[in-house]
């Protein structure tokens, strides 16, 4: 028995380090891609180091305590008052040390918190509204003609502070971009905000972190960080209404789309489709994913999604609709072309 906790502790720390070493992910708190996330990661590693040291120390102490010493205790009440006094000092000292440690950690945490929530002039304001189970994304500009709505994909310019205003249309959700920033809840009747900067171009995945019902697991979102020029081009493209299709199949698709239940919920700006309760499809073809990061964007996946949304995301609010196979293909082609 002796010494085993110690060995276990060392093993655990090693295993932890080994596994963490290989942690690079597009949705990982351990792969920070902005100052906020780096601050968080730094604090985490600092805490981890201190606390691991404490853990190892406690386990060593425990292991030493288990070493049999002294004569067998026939009378349990016979304790040596001198060693008791020594122990008193040690325990009191350790209690004080614990107090100092947590005080210091609290200080670090507080400073970090201040850094994290420091307010900078933001370059982009995005309003994100949580819905069961997708994200409505609205870019706000003083010039009303330059505001627009999209869904489940947020583009940001690299190196520029972004402010995300958060609220919810139904239940509580939580907006979490591990590579860029911690999380913040979206609460009906309340507006929260969160700020981050993406330092490098890339794709960062986020996910709803507060249980929000049936399809909480499939409520992902994507942040696309790109150079300012690319971001501005993207924004101008998003502001524009949908292009009118010219290929015959897409024309058929548009007609089918507009004459079907699709329009009850979805908007395609520039057409008669003006539903407000489901993701804006004006430029759906330009997005990388479908159904809140559930499927990669492709014509095939669009068709599959339209045919059987509940096979892919059971309980989603998109209904199953009676459609001819030709119509399905045409609608998928039409939507895919909405770049």
């Amino acid at each position, binding site marked *: *028995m002796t010494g085993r*906790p110690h060995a*276990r502790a060392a093993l*655990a720390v090693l*295993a*932890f380090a080994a596994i963490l070493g290989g*942690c690079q992910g597009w*949705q*990982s*708190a*351990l792969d920070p891609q902005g100052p906020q996330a780096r601050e*968080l990661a730094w*604090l*985490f590693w600092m805490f*981890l180091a201190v606390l691991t040291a404490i*853990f190892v120390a*406690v386990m060593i*102490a*425990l292991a*030493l*305590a*288990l070493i*049999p*010493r*002294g004569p067998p*205790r026939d*009378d349990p*009440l016979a*304790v040596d008052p001198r060693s008791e006094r020594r*122990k008193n000092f040690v*325990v009191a000292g*350790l*209690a004080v040390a614990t107090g100092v440690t*947590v005080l210091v*950690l609290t200080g*670090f*945490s*507080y400073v*970090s*918190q201040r850094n994290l929530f420091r307010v900078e002039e933001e370059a982009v304001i995005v309003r994100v509204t949580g819905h069961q189970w997708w994200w409505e994304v609205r870019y706000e500009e003083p010039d009303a003609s330059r505001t627009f709505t999209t869904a489940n994909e947020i583009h940001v310019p690299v190196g520029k502070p972004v402010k995300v205003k958060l609220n919810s249309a139904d*239940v*509580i959700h939580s907006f*979490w971009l591990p590579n860029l920033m911690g*999380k913040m*809840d979206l*609460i*009906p009747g*309340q507006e929260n*905000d969160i700020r981050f900067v993406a330092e490098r171009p890339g794709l960062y*995945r986020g*996910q709803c*972190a507060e*249980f929000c*019902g*049936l*399809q*909480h*697991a*499939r409520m992902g979102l994507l942040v696309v960080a790109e150079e300012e020029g690319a971001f501005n081009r993207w924004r101008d493209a998003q502001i524009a209404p949908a292009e009118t299709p010219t290929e015959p199949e897409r024309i058929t698709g548009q007609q089918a789309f507009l004459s079907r239940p699709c329009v009850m919920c979805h908007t395609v700006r520039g057409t008669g489709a003006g539903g407000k309760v489901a993701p804006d499809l004006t430029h759906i073809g330009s997005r990388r994913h479908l159904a809140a990061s559930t499927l990669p964007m492709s014509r095939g996946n669009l068709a599959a999604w339209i045919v059987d949304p509940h096979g892919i995301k*059971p309980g989603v609010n998109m209904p199953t609709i009676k459609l001819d196979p030709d119509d399905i293909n045409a609608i998928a082609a039409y939507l895919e072309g909405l770049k």
Partner: protein
Amino acid sequence: MSDAAVTSGRDLRDTALPDGELHARLSRTWGTGKGLIARLSTVDHKIIGRRYLITAFVFLLLGGALAAAMRIQLARPGNQVLGPDAYNQLFTMHGTTMMFLFAVPVMEAVGVYLVPLMVGTRNIAFPRLNAFSYWTYLFGGIFIWTAFALKVGPDVGWFAYVPLSGPQYGVGKRPDVWAQMITFTEVSALAVAVEIIVTTFKQRAPGMTLDRIPLFVWAMLVTSFAIVFSMPAIVIASTTLILDRLIGTHFYNAAEGGDSLLYQHLFWFFGHPEVYIIFLPATGMVSMIVATFARRPAFGYIPLVLSLIAIGFLSFGLWVHHMFATGLPQLGMSFFTANSMLIAIPNGVQIFCWIATLWGGRPVFRTPLLFVLGFFFIFVIGGLSGIMLASVPIDLQVHDTYFVVAHFHYVLIGGAVFPLLGAVYYWFPKLTGRMMSEAMGRWNFWLAFVGFNLAFFPMHILGLQGMPRRVYTYGPEMGWANLNLLATVGAVILALSFLLFVWNVFSSVRGGAIAGDNPWDAGTLEWATASPPPPQNFDRIPLVTSREPLWAERGAMPVVGGLTVDDRQVLVTTVTDARAELRESSPEPSIWPFLASVALTVLFVGSIFTPWAVVWGAVPVGVALLGWFWPKGDVEDEG
């Protein structure tokens, strides 16, 4: 106690009888009769405590089965074993069962069984209330599991945040079932808390001054106060939730001036002390086990008691660390960071004292101590990851992820279930008169230890890698598959360890070695009586002269006399010095607590279907309470 002994009639005193006859007569007076009615009427704290224990362990196994199903679903990405609807019900039932139907009741169960024995009295205070609390707990558990079987299992998480659990999004009766089950457990937990407080304060054996109370009893006392002060918050939360849902009040409707965050505040004002309600009794068990197997009194009795009390107080100032991501004011959150870190100090002191107790002696490595050592390893990890969660910035990353799942399983399984299993091995001989198998116990421990760490350690990393909790599936592109598979393997090993535990219990009840009164040579009063204890607990009430009376008084315990033999009488003592104050009769068995509980169940269950059930259901409850308290002109009713 100076009354002259009267040798006949109603006022026969124990001083007048020889040991053998006294034992037989007291057993008759305090015993539980045979037959169904007698069984339903019993007020013996040991029988009720045993029922509580068995029921709680049944719920543990049920909740564990749900966990196993969830782990199988998550073993591979995109698994199709469970759909989202089933999965959501499963994790809600798992959390609810483990927190409300296992963890809190099982700790109360141990308290109900052991506290009267440890303080040297014949029954718990308010024994009929005790019976009532058990039935209410049992019916609440049966209610929610029946609903689950009927596809009405709650699916909103064990803390049922509004608006998801509210009238608009919580469809059907599912959240009502959850909220009403909470009401059942609130009632039963409050009842037990009151009994334990009064038993500890007023029924201690003479001489057991405040600084001679066993540490487990101290832990139960602090826990009981925490229950008394925290449960009202959840009473309000669950009741207002039901009111919102069923009669259209607007407590949590932002559009009408309500606030969904209010629910979270109320819930966690209860929910955080709840963690300590589960954990503190476990620390009491650890203190007892460590002292016995280190073969010396616990080091630092006073610091340990003060730590318990400090934790009890501080646990009420932590709740906002569950809400760091809700957009509360920064400075306010920092206060809760500081407070959450502060609680590490009393917890640290406890750990240091236990290590100091073990230090420099010759610890006896039996199964109970193994579980306590496992507790040290696991709980310290859980406590330290708790320090991370106390920090607002770190919490913003790991809140509501698998890191948190890992953390609270480290704290609750490591901090409460490991000591509890150790406690079962430790007190099993007292309950049954037989020892549990030591060989199986070691296998049990090592399987549990390895399985637990395999199952839950990877979850820390999963959380940091971005896996939110409460997801029924994840895509292969997320890179979480291997660690999840590892966790599932660990869960299987952990499940095996529990099967082994159950097997050990069943085989030892029949075939274990005969234990004797004090198989571990422990020092506290529960070991001063037979195993299992007779209905009257002690033939003669012990006189306590030290913290570990059995170690101090080898051979012959001093006793006090003068209690009547032919009716149920307990000795009431003063709160601080435990000086004998008066003789008080303890209630006889009664069927009314059972009937009152049945009536209350009808009221509670009916009220989720119609508010009129509260009106009409109150009639049978009233009748049952009248029957319960109706004066019968016997000795019990004398002032």
